[in-house]
C-alpha cells in the first residue's frame, strides 16, 4: 500500500522535520519512502512544503497533484493545498493557525498543537504534536520507531527527550479523542 502525504506551513514550523522523521522511520523499517522538499527562490523566509510517499512497493513518482493525507500548519497553506486532497483522504489541521475547515464529508482532524504544546510546557514541540497526530491517522508506522527517530534527531539534547515523547503521545491522543 502506498500513502502520499503533503506537509505545508511557514518556514520554521518544522515541516521538513516531520516529513523526514516519517520517511526515515519507514526506511529503517524496510519500507520504501521518498521525501521531496519543495524548493525555490520564493522559499526565502516564506512557506515550506514537502511531499512524503511511503509504500511497501517500488515508488513511482515522488511528486503528485493529489494526496492521501495533508498536514497543513497554517492558513495560507490550507488555502493553497486543501484542494489537493484525494477523495477519501484525510487532513490534519494545525487548528492553532488554521481557521478554515474542509467542506462537509471531508475527513479531518483539527489539532490545536500550540495549546497542547503549551500545556506540556514548551511551544516548540507543537510540531511533535502534529507528528503524533499523523501517526495515529496514517496507521502505517510504528509509534516507538518514530520516537526512536526523534530521539536520534535530538542527539545531544537528551533533556528534551521526555517532552518530545509526551508531545507525540498527546498528538496521538488528540486524534483518538476526536
Amino acid at each position, binding site marked *: 500500500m502506498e500513502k502520499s502525504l503533503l506537509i505545508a506551513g511557514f518556514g520554521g514550523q518544522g515541516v521538513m522535520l516531520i516529513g523526514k522523521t516519517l520517511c526515515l522511520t519507514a526506511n529503517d523499517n524496510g519500507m520504501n519512502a521518498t521525501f521531496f522538499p519543495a524548493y525555490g527562490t520564493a522559499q526565502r*523566509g516564506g512557506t515550506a512544503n514537502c511531499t512524503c510517499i511511503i509504500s511497501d512497493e517500488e515508488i513511482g513518482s515522488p511528486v503528485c497533484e493529489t494526496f492521501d493525507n495533508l498536514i497543513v500548519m497554517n492558513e495560507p497553506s490550507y488555502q493553497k493545498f486543501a484542494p489537493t486532497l484525494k477523495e477519501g483522504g484525510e487532513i490534519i489541521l494545525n487548528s492553532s493557525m488554521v481557521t478554515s475547515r474542509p467542506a462537509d464529508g471531508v475527513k479531518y482532524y483539527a489539532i490545536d498543537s500550540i495549546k497542547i504544546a503549551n500545556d506540556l510546557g514548551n511551544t516548540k514541540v507543537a510540531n511533535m504534536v502534529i507528528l503524533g497526530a499523523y501517526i495515529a491517522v496514517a496507521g502505517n508506522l510504528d509509534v516507538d520507531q518514530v520516537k526512536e527517530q526523534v530521539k536520534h534527531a535530538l542527539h545531544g539534547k537528551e533533556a528534551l527527550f521526555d517532552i518530545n515523547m509526551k508531545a507525540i503521545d498527546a498528538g496521538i491522543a488528540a486524534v483518538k479523542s476526536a
Partner: protein
Amino acid sequence: MAKIEVAKDRCKGCKLCVLNCPKNIIKIGSDVNTAGYFVAEQFNPEECTGCKLCAIMCPDMAISVYK
C-alpha cells in the same frame, strides 16, 4: 515634534532601527504581521527628533518619518 510610522507589512523585525535610534525609542513589539514577523514600533514619539536614522537604516523601507 516628530514621529515615525512603520509600514506593518514591510517590517521584518530585524531590529536595525531599534539599534540605531539615538533616542532609543523603538522596540520590536508583540504584533505579528501577515508574513509572521514581529513588527517594530515607536514607544516614545514625543522624544523623536525626526533624525531619520531609523528610516535610512531600514532595509525594508518600512519607516516613514514625519516632522
